[in-house]
């Protein structure tokens, strides 16, 4: 068995779900890195006009194409359903397509799930000091967590992190209806409803100029709040 094959054999029971919208400049690198460690990488191209999905496919990801753009929540749900169609998958990791997440963190989360005492592992930026955040972003994220904890009854330190891992059972239970970014709160809500056992692991978010430019405006938090309340 070559080194390549050994690597490809790793984590055959895990699907990495990567929602992608117009990440043509970075997606190849993200997929290449993921494929070093994970056999099953599911990319959902959320109607990108720049051919991100085709690039991801060339780099070995399994790609599902949304015919038109819907938003990250919709892309995640599609990716989860695509992964569930594969009976080998026991664990699902959601991973952002802009390269801000660390693959070591993803591996640690899956290893945590394998211990069998939790169903969900959330990534948190606030459990250690590695992630550098601007004050404004820190305040908004903290407020968002407080709100999420309030309405879901869960106790989390960071509810709006795109890096999380959960079991097949949780994936089957989750049904994201918010197409936009409100899915982050919705997912926590549903995990609370399902009475799943969860834990938070510290993760390192690498904010690059690219991810900052691509990332959400803090103003979007107002839209998210509105979406959550009025629907």
């Amino acid at each position, binding site marked *: 068995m070559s080194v390549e094959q050994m690597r490809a054999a790793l984590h055959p029971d895990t699907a990495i779900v990567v929602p992608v919208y117009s990440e043509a400049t970075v997606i190849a690198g993200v997929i290449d890195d993921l494929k070093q460690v994970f056999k099953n990488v599911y990319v*959902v191209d959320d109607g990108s006009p720049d051919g991100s999905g*085709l690039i991801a*496919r060339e780099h070995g990801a*399994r*790609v*599902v*194409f*949304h*015919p*038109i753009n*819907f938003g990250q929540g*919709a892309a995640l*749900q*599609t990716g989860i*359903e*695509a992964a569930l*169609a594969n009976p080998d998958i026991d664990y699902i990791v959601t991973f952002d397509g802009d390269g801000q997440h660390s693959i070591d963190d993803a591996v640690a989360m899956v290893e945590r799930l394998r211990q069998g005492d939790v169903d969900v592992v959330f990534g948190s930026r606030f459990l250690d000091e590695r992630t550098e955040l601007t004050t404004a972003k820190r305040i908004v994220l903290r407020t968002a967590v407080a709100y999420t904890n309030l309405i879901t009854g869960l106790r989390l330190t960071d509810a709006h992190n795109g890096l999380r891992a959960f079991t097949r059972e949780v994936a089957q239970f989750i049904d994201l*209806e918010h*197409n936009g970014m409100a899915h982050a709160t919705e997912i926590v809500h549903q995990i609370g409803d399902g009475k799943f056992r969860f834990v938070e692991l510290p993760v390192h978010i690498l904010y690059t100029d690219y991810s900052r430019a691509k990332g959400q405006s803090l103003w979007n938090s107002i839209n998210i709040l509105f979406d959550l309340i*009025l*629907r």
Partner: protein
Amino acid sequence: MHIAQFAILVAIFVALWFALHHRSRTEARAFRRVAFILLMGTIVTAVLFPDLLTDVAHALGIGRGADLVLYLTSIGLLYVSISVYLKFGDMDRRITLLARQIALMEDSGKLTHPDRPADAE
């Protein structure tokens, strides 16, 4: 608080309640149609008998007929905006489900996109 102020505030909450709880149901459709006919009737009456509007306003304790119209229009607009917002949300969800089915069917090889080769896997 004057009776008219109270009535208008109540009407705002009734409109909100209807918009939030009775959407895409038979009653909501009937409610909208009745409201529409009443509105048409009111407009026609108000145009034909402008003094009547002022009399009704005075009876309710509102200064002018124009103010009464303004309040009623605001309530109507509130109801319509919320209904439309929610309706668009519903449509969005339905379109998403449809598109997801298409995307997953293409993924499983049951459909082929005309401009995209099927996945080699």
